[in-house]
């Protein structure tokens, strides 16, 4: 019998790490592709060089989890084929194109675990391209991985648990946090009472963070409306409406984001079926409780499939790997699989409540100005998008992309896609689920033209 190709795991965050461990424990030697220089994903991201800070200072309450994952992954050693600093940029014909150190090669696999993680969900606001404005996740990475603050006097705005966490981390690092502008009303936070029995530790920690911020002089505003950022060449102030009045706060750095958005491009290229998910307000790859996608041999785990947080990602990574083992005819622990599914179902109930407590603003589309940049790559305004929708009677997001280039720039819609869909839905009086989804294109991130052909293929090309 011919030897089977190894499984391929994409991503080395909590889901990818646990998937790798599970496959290695069953005697397989998976390939693990990681865009980062070291494992951990974004939440447990490791610094490029030692900076004198320990795990507690870097990861706070999650230090033990981070340390355990880093240690467990390191212990896999040569039991896996680890490819750090590597970009999976295409999937075709059962093989992956992976770029590392300027060289792309095709890698065959048998079984694919996609643990691609998430980035901040963003809806553009005026001034969002000014230097000094970062996503909440970006502001956190500056602090966590690089030991830098995004300003001396910083404001955090948007929605989501990360809003309070990052603000608190900046305060603890000694940075002046002038304000936390929560786009959601205070009433939404009453949902946290429902979360209390599900996850008392998480809820109480969050409340403590908000209380400590207030005690340290941070202005915490609920229901902040019409947020915009102003400045000449860099951030100088943030302006918002609250209680019927306009307010302005001087600052030199802003962190902004509205919860998280799964990175689904690889699942798209793998041919996975997608379905609209009301909680994440996006089209997501379909998967069952085990992590099996609609495509045989393709498994989905972690925030890249649906936002559920790092603890869920660990469980989902292990669960998906068990499914892979079962489908490969190898022995797998079915009782463990069932326990993981129960744990995931419990976290899922908590996420429902957290989404209610930290909702995205529902009033974004009617508010936006015509001259606001919707697409930061190609610099297309919302006015241009609206004119295209009207002039070409557009009702589908890929048509909007073809006509305006929204979603066609370097980020491939990661930053503007949600906004374009919201705009299209609002102006055509359709539900957001009915305007379609931006199709992923290879390469899923920019790669140098000189290396876009795999070396293996070049060798077989008679022209060379």
């Amino acid at each position, binding site marked *: 019998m011919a030897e089977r190709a190894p499984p391929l795991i994409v991503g080395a965050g909590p889901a990818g790490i646990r998937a790798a461990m599970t496959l290695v424990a069953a005697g397989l030697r998976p390939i693990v592709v990681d*865009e*980062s220089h070291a494992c951990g994903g974004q939440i447990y991201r490791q610094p490029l060089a030692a900076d004198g800070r320990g795990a507690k200072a870097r990861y706070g309450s999650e230090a033990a989890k981070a340390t355990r994952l880093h240690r467990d992954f390191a212990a896999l050693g040569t039991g896996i084929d680890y490819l750090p600093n590597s970009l999976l940029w295409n999937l075709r014909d059962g093989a992956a194109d992976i770029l590392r150190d300027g060289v792309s090669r095709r890698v065959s696999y048998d079984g694919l675990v996609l643990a691609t993680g998430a980035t901040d969900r963003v809806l553009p606001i005026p001034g969002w391209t000014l230097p*000094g404005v970062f996503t909440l*996740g970006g502001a956190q990475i500056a602090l966590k991985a690089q030991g830098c*603050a995004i300003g001396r006097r910083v404001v955090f705005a948007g929605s989501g648990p990360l809003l309070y966490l990052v603000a608190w981390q900046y305060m603890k690092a000694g940075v002046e946090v002038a304000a936390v502008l929560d786009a959601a009303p205070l009433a939404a936070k009453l949902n946290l009472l429902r979360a209390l029995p599900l996850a008392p530790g998480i809820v109480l920690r969050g409340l403590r963070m908000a209380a400590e911020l207030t005690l340290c002089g941070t202005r915490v505003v609920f229901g902040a409306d019409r947020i915009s950022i102003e400045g000449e060449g*860099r951030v100088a102030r943030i302006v918002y409406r609250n209680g019927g009045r306009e307010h302005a706060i001087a600052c030199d750095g802003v962190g902004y984001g509205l919860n998280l958005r799964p990175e689904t491009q690889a699942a798209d290229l793998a041919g996975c079926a997608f379905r609209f998910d009301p909680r994440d307000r996006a089209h997501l790859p379909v998967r069952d409780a085990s992590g099996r996608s609609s495509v045989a041999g393709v498994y989905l785990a972690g925030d890249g499939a649906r936002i559920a947080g790092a603890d869920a990602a660990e469980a989902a990574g292990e669960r998906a790997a068990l499914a892979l083992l079962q489908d490969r005819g190898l022995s797998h622990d079915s009782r463990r699989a069932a326990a993981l599914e129960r744990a995931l179902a419990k976290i899922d109930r908590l996420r429902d409540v957290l989404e209610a407590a930290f909702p995205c603003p529902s009033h974004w589309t009617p508010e936006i100005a015509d001259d606001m940049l919707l697409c930061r790559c190609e610099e297309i305004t919302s006015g241009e998008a609206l004119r295209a929708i009207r002039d070409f009677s557009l009702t589908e997001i890929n048509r909007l992309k073809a006509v305006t280039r929204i979603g066609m720039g370097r980020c491939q819609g990661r930053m503007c896609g949600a906004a374009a869909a919201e705009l299209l839905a609002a102006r055509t009086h359709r539900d957001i689920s009915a305007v379609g989804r931006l199709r992923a294109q290879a390469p899923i991130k920019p790669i140098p033209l000189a290396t876009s052909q795999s070396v293996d293929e070049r060798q077989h090309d008679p022209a060379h």
Partner: protein
Amino acid sequence: MPLLHRLVRNESPAISFLIDGEPCEGRAGDTVLTAVLCHVERLRDSEFSGAPRAGFCQMGACQDCWVQLAGGERLRACTTELVEGMHIITRRGRGRG
């Protein structure tokens, strides 16, 4: 005025590099984004409006922080480690002499 402020690694080994021809010093463990924005407040000009940009997501997703080296090579500043002697161009037509 720099955009970023270093809270740790102030004593880490220095790495010499250039921004638009001006000699600068970064620290071991810096990304290109960190090294540049600890000195100045921009990474590049937008190709369309010419407005300054300085990155956004810092995790390789938004592609806002692509910069050019003096040799013409382009790189994503937030996911590239600073290397001794790099010459980063943030403004076109400057620092190429």
